[in-house]
Each structure stands twice: as structure tokens, then as C-alpha cells.
């Protein structure tokens, strides 16, 4: 039964329908004029570009609905260029569509596979070539060549060795030491506890000697957020509580997830939020992670005051700051 089923047949390419421009000389002339108009428009675009470059001042702004305040120089250059290029393209395509031949052409395809004979010859050639080289018969050459090639890969790897120093303990240490003053960033002013009201936040860095320069590498490890709460709001063990001073607590500002600056503090909930991946840390519970992808709390900097009443570090950070790495806990 199944071999009697007749499928629907291919009716073949439909008859070609001529365009108006193919049959009506007037329509063809009209299309030609349209193409020429587009090319003239393009030329005008270039004129606009040249005029804007030479004669429009760079500080003229004017208001355009939707776009807002717009710089006339920039807009003139850009629109001139856009019109010049777009109209060339539109003209070319209009030309191709209305005036160039639009009768479909049929080309034949051929299977890519070569004739069986050619294939056999090809395989034979490869085999003959390999046999002539005689690699299979000379294992000594094969093995020493393999070893030499393998070893030669060492040179590019080795020569890239000076790309950077070894990490050493740089990922584990910061500039904070016992007694380092916390200074404001920016401003480099040392802080006293009374400078911070309850609920306030301050971004701080370790104090540096006058004339010394602080590199971005330092800031990337040393940035510290100071937050002041009422002491009874903390929910900390005795050790952690001893690292705070009169309700002021200090955390590394570098996220324990991927190292962004944990810059958002929500005063109501006392949560710190990293704007990169939304890890959320609870300030009252030693920056415990309460949401988001970070797996560790922010390192806490133990603080106290020095003899002059300025806030200082009691000790360096209790653990490496920033994102995790293989030998972090070693």
C-alpha cells in the first residue's frame, strides 16, 4: 500500500513577473531619477559634514525633543556622515532592485565528495608520502623529534615568566598595622569617634606619611568602611565586639566575592550591599552574608583609639581581603 502513495509534485519555478521598469520606459526613467536623487542627497550629507567641521562651534547646545540637549557640532558631523553613507547604500540597492536584471538564475550544485578513484589516489599518495619519509621504520627519529617538539614548548612559556612577579604573600597582606590611623578618603583627615554620628558611614584608608604616594594597588586592598551603630545593636561575640570602638565597626570595603567596592549601605536595615553581584552583608553580625553569591563575610579590621583620641587599627585584618584564591587559607 505504502509504495502507492503519491507525493505532491514540484510545480517548478513560477513564471517570471516583469517589473514596471522592465516594460515601461517611463517607469525606468523615473527609477533612474530616484537613484540619482539619492546620490545627490548623499552629496548634501557630505556638505553638511564639512560645514559642521569647519564652521559650527563645539560649544553650541540646543534642545531636541527625545534626544535632549544636543551638541550642534557633533550632531552635524554625525548626521552628515549618516546621510552621506546611507543614501549611497539606498541608491545602489534601489538601482539593483529596479533597473538591474531580476530574472532568477539557476546554477547546479555538485556533491563535494570526489570521485572514488581520486579518493583512492589521494589516500595512496598520503600513504606513499608517509612511507617515503619512513617515520614508521625509524622509531629513533620519531621519538627524538617528538621529545624535541615537546620540549621546545617550554621556551615560550618560560620566556613569558617575566610577565609578572610571583604572588608571594601580597594577596594576604594589607598596609594596615597596629596603630595605623584611619584617615578619610578623600581628604586624608584622621578621624575621631565623635566625627561619626550614629548611623553614619565613612570610607577610610590607612594614613600615610606626608609626601608619600598611595597607589591604586594599595587602595585595592586597604579600603575600609567605618560604620557607627548604637553598641547595643551589635550581635557579636566578645572578641569581635572588642574589635569595635563605641559602636564603630570597620570592614574591608573590598568584596569577599569578586573584589568590587561594597559601596551601598542601607541605614534602616544595617545591610551592606555590593552593587556588582548583590551580595548582602549584615553589619550587626560581623558582615555575615545574608544574600547573594558571596560565601564569606567581609574581613573585619579591629579598631581602637590612640593616645590623641584618633581612630587606629588594633591589629592588621584578621584574614586576607578580597576575592578567594587557592592558597587563601594556607
Amino acid at each position: 500500500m505504502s509504495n502507492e502513495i503519491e507525493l505532491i509534485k514540484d510545480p517548478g519555478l513560477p513564471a517570471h513577473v516583469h517589473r514596471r521598469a522592465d516594460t515601461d520606459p517611463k517607469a525606468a526613467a523615473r527609477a533612474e531619477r530616484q537613484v540619482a536623487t539619492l546620490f545627490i542627497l548623499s552629496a548634501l550629507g557630505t556638505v553638511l559634514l564639512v560645514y559642521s567641521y569647519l564652521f559650527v562651534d563645539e560649544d553650541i547646545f540646543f534642545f531636541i525633543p527625545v534626544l535632549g540637549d544636543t551638541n550642534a557640532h557633533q550632531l552635524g558631523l554625525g548626521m552628515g556622515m549618516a546621510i552621506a553613507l546611507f543614501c549611497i547604500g539606498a541608491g545602489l540597492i534601489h538601482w539593483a532592485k529596479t533597473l538591474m536584471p531580476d530574472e532568477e538564475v539557476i546554477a547546479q550544485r555538485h556533491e563535494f565528495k570526489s570521485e572514488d578513484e581520486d579518493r583512492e589516489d589521494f589516500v595512496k599518495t598520503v600513504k606513499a608520502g608517509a612511507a617515503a619519509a619512513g617515520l614508521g621504520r625509524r622509531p629513533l627519529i620519531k621519538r627524538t623529534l617528538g621529545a624535541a617538539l615537546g620540549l621546545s614548548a617550554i621556551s615560550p612559556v618560560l620566556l613569558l615568566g617575566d610577565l609578572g612577579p610571583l604572588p608571594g604573600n601580597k594577596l594576604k597582606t594589607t598596609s594596615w598595622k597596629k596603630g595605623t590611623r584611619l584617615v578619610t578618603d578623600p581628604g586624608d583627615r584622621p578621624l575621631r569617634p565623635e566625627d561619626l554620628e550614629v548611623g553614619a558611614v565613612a570610607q577610610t584608608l590607612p594614613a600615610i606619611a606626608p609626601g608619600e604616594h598611595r597607589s591604586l594597588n594599595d587602595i585595592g586592598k586597604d579600603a575600609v568602611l567605618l560604620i557607627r551603630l548604637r553598641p547595643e545593636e551589635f550581635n557579636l561575640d566578645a572578641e569581635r565586639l572588642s574589635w569595635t570602638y563605641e559602636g564603630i565597626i570597620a570592614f574591608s570595603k573590598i568584596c569577599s566575592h569578586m573584589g568590587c567596592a561594597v559601596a551601598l549601605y542601607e541605614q534602616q536595615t544595617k545591610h551592606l550591599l555590593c552593587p556588582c553581584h548583590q551580595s548582602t552583608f549584615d553589619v550587626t553580625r560581623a558582615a555575615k552574608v545574608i544574600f547573594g553569591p558571596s560565601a564569606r563575610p567581609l574581613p573585619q579590621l579591629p579598631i581602637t583609639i590612640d593616645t590623641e583620641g584618633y581612630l587606629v587599627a588594633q591589629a592588621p585584618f584578621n584574614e586576607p581581603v578580597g576575592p578567594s584564591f587557592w592558597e587563601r587559607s594556607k
Partner: protein
Amino acid sequence: MTARERIAGNVAGYVDDRTGAAKWMKKNLTKVFPDHWSFLLGEICLYSFVILLLSGTFLTFWFDPSMREVIYEGSYEPLKGLEMSAAYASTLDISFEVRGGLLMRQIHHWAALIFMVGIVVHLMRVYFTGAFRKPREFNWIIGVGLLTLGIVEGFLGYSLPDDLLSGTGIRIAEAIIQALPVVGSYLAFFAFGGAFPGVAFIPRIYTVHVLLLPAIFLALITVHLMLVWYQKHTQFPGPGRTEKNVVGYPLMPVYMAKAGGFFFIVFGVTAFLGAVASINPIWLYGPYTPGQVSAGSQPDWYMGWLDGLVRMAPPIETVTFGYTISWNILIPGLILPGIMFTALALYPFIESWANGDKREHHLLDRPRNAPTRTAIGAMALTFTLVTLLNGGNDIIATTFDLTINQMMWFSRIGVIVLPPLAYVITKRLCLSLQRADRDLVLHGRETGRLVRMPSGEFVEIHEPISAEKAWLLTSHEQLAPLELPEHDGGGVRRPGAIKNKIRNRISRSMATAVPKATQTERQELEGHH
């Protein structure tokens, strides 16, 4: 013979005398290309790549890829007197001092976005129509390579200005490198010439961005196009179109004019965007410093899915024998993307393994006629879309008055639940469309004209569809499922039985179809009416 024809003849003769190219040129100048709007998507990628080369070269004349600290003294008042890197300062100069510099920067950035959109949509076209099948698997792999490199190249490009936003992106990239087991911190120190951010990274990625990757792009694009040329373009099914022919227009003059014109159109549109649509206004972000970040930090869209994956990862980190492994970074940042891109690259081989089809294909599939493939595609797109949405979860949360937690939980659950759902729905939709095609062929088009019969019965008049349309709806082939033996004659399991069982299952799923209408059925129905 006119003077012009004589000159054309002389030029052709001059070239042929020295290259013997006449035969090749004769054949290739009249090469036939099929016409379809979706075949322009790849062209958009090619043209935006050319625009990127042109505008990028312009930018290099002024850009200073150095992290040397300078004091800004340009004309942008809010940043005057600030310390910043020479890279950032020179980007400000391009934007404010160089005439047309801002336009070129914006054209460059818009062209990069269009390049990536073009690649992704082109990839979707190739996937959903089955254009990747034999003999075009190589070109599919090259395409996946171009997509991957495009993501890297784009990321490096927007990282160069060293503004607060891009520096944050580099910080995240560094954290991913640092999270690699065993070698992470060493690789990070090699890449950055020491601790983050150091002073080496921007000049290094500059070389990669303007020299190394563009050269690889150029090579891959050349091979990609040569293969399209040599293998001839695929075509959609239709009357007169077969596996053995190409129906279309000749290269010269029609495609030269159309493709050349399209380049100018793409360039014109990109210039228009550069003129009116502000993109990456780095002067608003300020210079990079690791201690600051702005709320709502977002990567460019083609990195958004990756950022979204990282955001939704559960907070898992393990310490074994004192060594830390950050699963919350490795899984979303490396392992999942690795699996996704490998699966994408291998798809043509997986499909032909599963349905046993090893023949050449030059006629494209209508997506509905390959329901399983279409459903897998919809599933992958849904997955990517959920992760992309989560990459903007903070923006979406503030825009729609949601909490960040709601957004994150929606994505965490959605990324697991929605893709299979998309698979099932898409497959059903495809089969429904097949059924609709079948009905259309057998019963014709509903005219909306109701006729009352003498018996009082109301019937709607159906008009038969054209022979061309009927062919289009039935010309596809419906593969039978594989029937690989799982048992030998005696009922004992054969070696490889499990593999065969899996293949049988997948191929059965791929062969699910509504039987297409046949002429026999049509005639039988006519007899009834």
C-alpha cells in the same frame, strides 16, 4: 564596440595575461546567490567588522594605552585637576578635544554592539534552519569561535578607557582568574604584572585588542567567507529549488550592488546612532579607583548573561586540605560557559549522530519541520535570556519596584524551570503548525464564506491553495527514527546496547512529526466532497 567596452576588454586581458584568471573569474563573477532577508544577517556582521577596523584605527591615533598617572587639564570642567590614568585622560581628549572624536568613539562602540547582535541573530538563523548540517560543520565551528572571540574582544575594548565602570569589570575578570584552582593567583599576577590593578594591564590588553584578536578575526572571517563561496549558499525550499541547484541572482552586477549598498546602509545607520545616541559616556563615571563603584554597574549586553549567572550563583566555597575552591565563581564564570560553548560547537555532530543523517543538505529546514531542534534552541535561548535578565536584576528591580531578592529568586528558579518548559511548549507549537500545514494542503484555505445547504446545514467554503504553496508545505522530508538493534537474535543484549538505546530514543524524539499531506490523500478527499 564602444570605447568603454574596449577598455574593459583591455583590463580583463591585462589581468588574465598575468594571472590566467579568466576561467575562474568568468565562473565566479556570475556566481548565483539565493535571496532572503535572513541571509543579510551575516553581512551585517562583516560590515560592522569593517566599520570597527576603520573607526578603531582612527581612535588609536589619539588613545594613549598607559596607566601612568596624569592630572587632567582638558576642557571637561567636572574632572579638571583630578588624578587619572593617561588611558582615561586620552579617552576624555578624544571625546572633547578631537573634532569628530566623540562621534568615532560612539560609532566604534555601536558597531561593536551591532557586530555582536549580528553574530547572535545570524547564529540563530543558521541553527533554526539547519544550515549547519553537512557539509557546513566547519563553518559552524568557525562561527562559534567568532562569537567567543567577539565577546572577549568587546570586553577588552570597553575595558581600555580605564573608567570606573570598566575598571570594575576588569576587577571581576581578575577575580575569575584568581579563583582558578592551583594556578589562579599566579596567573592573575602574570596577567596583571603583579597585584591588581598594577600598571601593566591596559597596555597589554591594548595589544591584544588592536593587533592579536583583529588578526585572528580577519583570518577566521576570510575562511568563513571562502567556505560560503566554495560550498555555495544554502537556500530555502520552494518551487523549483532542490538539493542539486541554487536559485538566485548573479554576483555581477546584482549582488555587487546590493551587498555594496548594504555596507553603506549599515555604516550609515551606525553613524546615525553615533550621532544621536550617547553610548558609554565615560566622563560621567570618573577615573577608576578600586575603592569606589557606582550603583547599577552593568557590562555590555553580550557579557550580561555571564554576569547574570555569577549573580545568581549560590554562595558555595569549599576548603579541602586548606585549599580554597570558589564554586560560586568557577561554576557560573567558567564551567557553565565552557559547557554551553562546547555543546554549541558540537551540536551539528550530535544531531547527525542522533538521527543517523550523514547526507549533504543545501535546502534549509522550516523550523517547524524540525521540532526537536527548534525546541532545543528555544530552551537554550530561554536559559540565556533568564541569565541576561538577572545580569540587570538591580536595574529591573529599581525600575519595576521589586526587591533585588525577588528578582534573584525568580532567576534562580526560572533558570532551571523555564528552559524545559520552553522546550515542551515549542515542540507542541511546531507540531501544531505542522498540523495546520497539513490541514491547509488537504482542505484548502478558509474563505470565511458561509453557505447554507438545501438541507439547512451551514458549511464554510474552502479554496484550494496554489500548487506552489502546496509544494512548499510538503516538500520537506520526514526522517524515520533509527531502529538500532539492542538485542541480538536470541534476545541477549548486544555490546553497545545502551548507546543504541540512547540513540534510538533521541532519534525517535527527533522524528516526531505530523505526517505531511500527500497527493493520494488529497485525491481521496476530493472524491468524498
